[in-house]
Every structure is written in structure tokens, then in C-alpha cells.
């Protein structure tokens, strides 16, 4: 789970985005229909950032490494373009109570060195990822599995989670510590990839040159320069490569990558820089796309701030600020129409999404209503005009400055208060103040889904004591709804309950949703079949040469 960080360009924050599988690619039929007369031998060049760590599934938590991992590894399932899980190595994932799962594998899959992918490849990899002594950044992904507490504690005595049991070479069972109906949805996430035995002997060396089982394999990694992927001929599955390999070029900024796209020096760019948002359609014509993905942008006003404590005054003020933001105007002027106004707290590409949850009108711009709400709050406790309302943002994320300044100006103009945009040098500096609860004002926030589930948005951000609950939000009623939604065995039923939980959020506004994310991408004249997945990552394996 990570914060959205408007710039995928700057490597810095581990935080960013989307480690999710880049895949999708749809079913083989679909990609065949996609007009695949293209050149299937062309090596595609694409932009990336330098992976922050060695390529180990449970240690890759940022875009740069994530997109490579998802191409060179394949797990039990992968996600299609719409975010629906499609079986890869899994033959079946079965449960009756949402707590005990039996997972059967399709036999015959191998790693690129010929060793077989077995139940042990998964169980050992997951145990490795969860064990404290391996210090893997994604270890919390296994926290639902029974026995996670024991292996992840400091000075843990055991390294095997008791919830994982191997039945035979192609079958294993997973026991969770509580029922969680969206567990199968998570299994396409990078952290859940299998590892060959060889990986555990020297994980560091393995991370530099992984032996893997995905549609591609890593051929070369020149740090800070490029990563070359070649087609893995032994891969069998829905994401078979339609090109001759992918050459990821490491860019320090999308600005320079964009210049390369225009000069025909690069084939695929996954993010148009802010400076080109007004021009990219005329620059690239039909070689560009605006694709919504599972992420949103929000503003969090922490509940520990004076005037904004959870309760009547705070709720009124948050609502007033929310209603003083003309989201559509910012979308039009700052993003040149490239985003969609938020209607709730998750994302429209997710199953169960609803645009008309009661209470959502608080996200609509209405200057009069905003002023009225603010005055009502002033009646409870007066807001002195010398007070400043700041919205923090990190300058290393391209595009943050523009939108945060616009929001601050709108709040200022509507409410007549001293609202300002406050820059932080780096994502690190901003997060530091946020996690230490040292914020003196609001801050930009956002979420990009790790796996396609509403719970991934709601639980992690607003559950009491949840890992990324920056605003210190706590509401028992909401927590109960979440639990109820998780335990539902029918996903549609679960989504309905999650949407009910959002009605509570609209009253309290632990974060103010602004808009849904969309990625603007472009490509050169040398390639075709470029599409973007549900998570905003190009479906690299389906791209062909011209």
C-alpha cells in the first residue's frame, strides 16, 4: 500500500505507487483481436525509474522495481486490463468461510532455469517475505496470514507462518487469522510471487539477477541506466509477450523522457509531465492516451489540528473547505481535463463503485454553502483571521505545486481565510512530519491501489489505528462496517457494505477527495497496441512493433 506520489519520475519516495502487476493484457483472444499484425520481434523501449532495491518480490514497493517484477514474475493470478484476477499458476483458489483457502497449482510451470514451480516455491517465498530477519519492506502484506505475528516480531524464534501448509507438490492451504473475503484478490500483487530455491541461499545476489517465471526474464541491469528484459520462452499463460523484449531506460524525470518520445528516441512513456499536459495531444496526436486508473487524490486535514478535531466544529470546517474547492475548474485548468472529479473515497475502476452514495454532495463546489458551514463552525469557536490554513505538498512530485496552489487559492477566495500552499523538499520530509504528527496544516495525500479492492482504499486509510491513517481518524461505527464488509462471502454484498461505510466518511471527512487519477501516456511511431491497465501501468507484454 503506498501513497500516490504524483511524480513517478523522481525515484526518491519508496512511497509511490503501483507495484501492481503491469499485466492484464486481457485474455489471449483479446490481444489477438487488438490488431496484432505488428512486428512481434521488436524490442520495445520504455521509461522507468531505477528500482530501489534488489528484485525480490517482498522487497519491491515502488514503481520502478514493481513494473519490472510484474513482467519477470508471475504468481497465482494476474490482473487483466480491468483489474479482474485471471488464473496464472493457480488452477483453483477455494474457500468456504473466507478464512481457510485451498490453493491448487497447474503442474508443469518452471522458472527460467528449468526448476519447477511448486507449492513450496510459494510457501517458502511468503515465509521468507514475512520473516523479521529478512527485513523485507512488503512484509506487512502477509499480516492476514495466521502466524504472521510470531514470525515478524523482533527476535522471532520461528520463520514459518503456521497458517501456510503444503499438502503436496501442487497444493497448499492458507489459514487467515480472520475471515477476509478479498484475500484472493491480493494474490496477483508482487509480494505474493513464488521464488526458486536458489533465491534463499543468497537473496542479495539473487535480487541483482533473478531467476524468474514470468513472461520475460531479466537479461541485463545497468544500474541507473537501463534494465533489459528478454522474452522467457518457457512462460505459459495469458500474458505471453507480443514483442521481442523490453528495454527499460532509467529516467530521472519524465520531462526528459517526454522529449525523447517526441524525438522518437523512446517507444513508450507512462506519464506525460505537467509541462506538456497542454500540448501532448497536439504533439503526439493519436499516439497518446488518457487512461483512468485505480487511484485518487485527496487532502487530509489531520484530526489533531486545532479547529479540525473530530467532532462538530472540525466536521463543519472540513465540509466547508471541501465545498469551497471547485474541482472541475482545477481539472480543466490545471489538468486540461485529464482527470475525473471524485464522487467518493475509492476509485471508479473498482468493482462495486457507486457515484451516488448519500452524502456525496459535500464534494460539490458551492461557495454559499461553504461560507455558511464555515460560519456555523465559527459560531462554535471563532477562527481568527490571522490564522493560516496551509496545505503541504512535496515539490519532488511533479504537478503537486500547481494543483495545491490552485486549491489553496480557491479556499482563500471562497472562505476569505488565509489559505496557502506549503512546499516540502521531498516526500520523505513531508511523510516525516505526517507520521510524527507534527503537521501544522493539511497536506496533499492520495492512494493508489495495490490490488483491485475497495477495502484496499478504505481499511488502510481510515480504519482505527490503520497503517496509513494519517489523520488519526477513528470511528467505531465505520470500523464495524469494514469488518462486516470483509466477512461477507459475496463480493457484491461486501461492496454494498463498503459503500455504506463511506456514508459515515462523508460526514466526518477524514480526507477530502478531489479527483480520480488518470494517467496520460504516449508512444512513438514505431509501436502499436499500447494500452494501459487498471493500475495505470502500460500493458507492456501486448505492445508490438510496427
Amino acid at each position, binding site marked *: 500500500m503506498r501513497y500516490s506520489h504524483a511524480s513517478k519520475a523522481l525515484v526518491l519516495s519508496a512511497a509511490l505507487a503501483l507495484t501492481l502487476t503491469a499485466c492484464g493484457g486481457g485474455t489471449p483472444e483479446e490481444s489477438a483481436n487488438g490488431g496484432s499484425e505488428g512486428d512481434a520481434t521488436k524490442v520495445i523501449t520504455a521509461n522507468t525509474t531505477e528500482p530501489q532495491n534488489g528484485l525480490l518480490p517482498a522487497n519491491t514497493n515502488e514503481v520502478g522495481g514493481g513494473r519490472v517484477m510484474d513482467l519477470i514474475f508471475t504468481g497465482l493470478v494476474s490482473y487483466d486490463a480491468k483489474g479482474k484476477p485471471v488464473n496464472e499458476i493457480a488452477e483453483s483458489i477455494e474457500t468456504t468461510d473466507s478464512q481457510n483457502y485451498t490453493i491448487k497449482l497447474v503442474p508443469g510451470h518452471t522458472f527460467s532455469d528449468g526448476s519447477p514451480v511448486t507449492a513450496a516455491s510459494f510457501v517458502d517465498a511468503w515465509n521468507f517475505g514475512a520473516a523479521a530477519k529478512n527485513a523485507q519492506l512488503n512484509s506487512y502484506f502477509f499480516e492476514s496470514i495466521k502466524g504472521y505475528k510470531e514470525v515478524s516480531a523482533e527476535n522471532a524464534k520461528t520463520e514459518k507462518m503456521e497458517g501456510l501448509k503444503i499438502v503436496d507438490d501442487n497444493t497448499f492451504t492458507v489459514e487467515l487469522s480472520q475471515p477476509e473475503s478479498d484475500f484472493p484478490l491480493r494474490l496477483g500483487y508482487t509480494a505474493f510471487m513464488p521464488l526458486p530455491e536458489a533465491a534463499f541461499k543468497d537473496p542479495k545476489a539473487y535480487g541483482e539477477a533473478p531467476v524468474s517465471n514470468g513472461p520475460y526474464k531479466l537479461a541485463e541491469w545497468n544500474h541507473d541506466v537501463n534494465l533489459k528484459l528478454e522474452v522467457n520462452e518457457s512462460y505459459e499463460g495469458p500474458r505471453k509477450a507480443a514483442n521481442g523484449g523490453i528495454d527499460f531506460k532509467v529516467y530521472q524525470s519524465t520531462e526528459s523522457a517526454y522529449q525523447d518520445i517526441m524525438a522518437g528516441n523512446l517507444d513508450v512513456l507512462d506519464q506525460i509531465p505537467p509541462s506538456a499536459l497542454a*500540448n501532448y495531444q497536439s504533439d503526439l496526436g493519436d499516439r497518446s492516451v488518457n487512461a483512468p486508473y485505480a487511484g485518487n487524490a485527496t487532502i487530509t486535514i489531520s484530526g489533531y489540528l486545532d479547529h479540525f478535531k473530530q467532532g462538530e466544529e472540525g466536521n463543519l470546517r472540513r465540509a466547508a473547505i471541501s465545498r469551497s474547492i471547485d474541482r472541475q475548474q482545477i481539472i480543466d485548468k490545471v489538468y486540461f481535463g485529464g482527470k475525473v472529479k471524485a464522487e467518493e473515497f475509492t476509485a471508479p475502476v473498482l468493482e462495486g463503485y457507486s457515484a451516488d452514495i448519500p452524502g456525496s454532495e459535500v464534494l460539490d463546489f458551492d461557495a454559499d454553502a461553504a461560507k455558511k458551514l464555515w460560519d456555523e463552525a465559527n459560531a462554535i469557536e471563532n477562527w481568527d483571521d490571522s490564522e493560516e490554513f496551509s496545505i503541504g505538498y512535496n515539490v519532488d512530485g511533479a504537478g503537486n505545486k500547481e494543483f495545491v496552489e490552485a486549491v489553496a487559492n480557491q479556499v482563500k*477566495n471562497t472562505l476569505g481565510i488565509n489559505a496557502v500552499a506549503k512546499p516540502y523538499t521531498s516526500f520523505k520530509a513531508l511523510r516525516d512530519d505526517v507520521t510524527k504528527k507534527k503537521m501544522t496544516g493539511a497536506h496533499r495525500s492520495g492512494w493508489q491501489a495495490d490490488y483491485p479492492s475497495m477495502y484496499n482504499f478504505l481499511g488502510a486509510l481510515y480504519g482505527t489505528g490503520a497503517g496509513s491513517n494519517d489523520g488519526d481518524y477513528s470511528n467505531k461505527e465505520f470500523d464495524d462496517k469494514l469488518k462486516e464488509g470483509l466477512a461477507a462471502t459475496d463480493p457484491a454484498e461486501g461492496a454494498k457494505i463498503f459503500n455504506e461505510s463511506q456514508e459515515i466518511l462523508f460526514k466526518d471527512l477524514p480526507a477530502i477527495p478531489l479527483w480520480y487519477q488518470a494517467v496520460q501516456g504516449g508512444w512513438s511511431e514505431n509501436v502499436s497496441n499500447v494500452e494501459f491497465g487498471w493500475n495505470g501501468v502500460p500493458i507492456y507484454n501486448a505492445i508490438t512493433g510496427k
Partner: protein
Amino acid sequence: MPENQNQNPEAGLPISKIRAGKVSKYTIPHFVAPLDETPLQGVDAVKETGKPLSMWAEAWRSLRKRPLFIISALLIIVVIAIATIPGLFTSVDPTSCYLEFSNEGPSSGHPMGYNFQGCDVYARAIHGTRASLMVGIFTTIFVVLIGGTIGALAGFYGGWLDTILARLGDIFFALPMVLGAIIVMQLPAFRDNKSVWTVIVTLAIFGWPQVARITRGAVLEARDADFVKASRALGLSRGKSLLKHVIPNAMAPVIVVATVNLGVYIVAEATLSFLGLGLPFEVMSWGNDISSAQSQLRNNPMMLMWPALFLSVTVLSFIMLGDAVRDALDPKSRKGN
């Protein structure tokens, strides 16, 4: 080396020639013979009454007649006026920004149009003058004071003092200015008290070695000149000969670097702002505006043009001023006019 031998008589002369010039009203008709006699006495006589004063006075007399000086001084006065009372030059509130005007061109009352956020470009440039000018001027002053002193001492006295000061400079110089600023500006003491002064201090901390280096080089060159030796032979102490003879003769490159620096510091503030380390966010500056103009370069180049133009004119006036002062201080150059 014949040219250096040739230089000696020349180098010895300037002061006597200034004297000569001063009394020349009466001696013009005999312009060859009397020059030798009068100045010798003149030098001796004036020396007791405090030569530096008269040298600067001499420079001033020559300066105020120069068109270059007059123009640059006028420009600087205007810029300082803008910085002091911006309200005189615009009545538009620079912080009143409406997104609906984003990137719009000039209209009545808004001669330079709007920026990306819909703020008035002209009003922002006017109100940004103070911070930018302060950063430019004060950083330059600090850097010249610190760097100049250290460089002059190091170059003049040499030996272990030179070693220590030069190596100290190396330590500070090794961290490139912008990068050093990133670290320093993030230190709690600086981050929590952000103001124009923290920016100035930061830039000065990492800027002085450059001027120190230049001064040291110039002083090294001047200290062995014959007129310095002569002044020592005449009984002037080392310190005094440094102040009275070496420094005035080593000023030219320092003035050049300082005036160019003035502009570079204003722009360095822009780079710091670009990286989120510059002035406090509520302080307007050309640098801030230039850095936000970057992302709109292709669509609204005017957003960059205006603050950059203000900056250019300011730097230009200081460069011209520096040129004029340098000319005025240099007797050789004055002789030519």
C-alpha cells in the same frame, strides 16, 4: 621577461600621476617638465593627510561624470524604490489569484497578463522585487566581505595562513552551493525560521570560497608589484600596504565577480525555490515566479519573460555600476579617457 620589467616603472607611477592630474590645471602648458617635480612633493605631502580618502574622492569625482554611472545609478534607485514601496507601482493585490484567468493575456489593469494560477504577473513582479533584491545585494555583500577578507589575507601573507584559509575554503567549496543549501535549509534551525535572511546566510556560507579564491589570486599578483615594495620601503607597515596599495589594485576581478554574482544569487534563489528550499512560501520573489513559470514555458512564456526581464535589468544596472566604479578606481584606465 621584458614585459614584466617594462611593467615596473608603470606600476610605480599611478599614484604620482593622480597627483599630477590633480594639480594639472596649472601645469597644462608645460606638460612634460613639471610632472617630475611637483608630484614627488605632492605625494609626500598628501600622504600625511590620509591618502586613501583622496584616492576614493578622486574616483568619485571621475565617477559622477560618467554616463554609465549615471544611468546605472538611476536604474538602481528605481529598483530600490520598487522594493521599498511596491504599492506605488501597482494597486493590484498580487495574492489575489483566480484560476479562471489562468494563463490569460494582458487586459486593462493587468498589463502583463496572468500567470498559471491566475495571479497578476506585473503585480507579482513588483512585489517580488524586495525579496529578490535583498537576496542579491546582501548575499553579495556578505560574500565579498567574508571571501574578500579571507582571500586577501591568504594571498598577502601566504605561508601557513594561506594554507589554512585555502583548505578551509576547499572544505566549504567541495559541497556545491545548491546541494549544500539543500542540507542547510533542511536543518531545523533554518527550516523553522525560514526568511529572506536564512536564504542569504545559506548562499553566503557556500558562496564565499569563490570570491576568496579570486581575491587571493588577484592579491598574489599585486603583492609583488614594485609599488607595493616601494611603499614598504617607505616604511609603510605590511597591513597598511595591503590596505592602501594591494587591495585597490586587486579590486577589479572582485568587482566583476561580485556584480555577476548578484544576478546569479537571485537566480540561485530561483533554483532553491524550484527545489522547495527557497524563501518562505508566502514571500514573493522573482525566483519563485521564474521557477513556477518553468512548467508553463511552452504555453505562457510571458510568465517567465517578465520576472526574468526585471532580474536582467537589475543585474545589468549593477554590472554597469561595477564597470564604472572599476574604471574610476583604475588610474591606468582613467588616463585613457
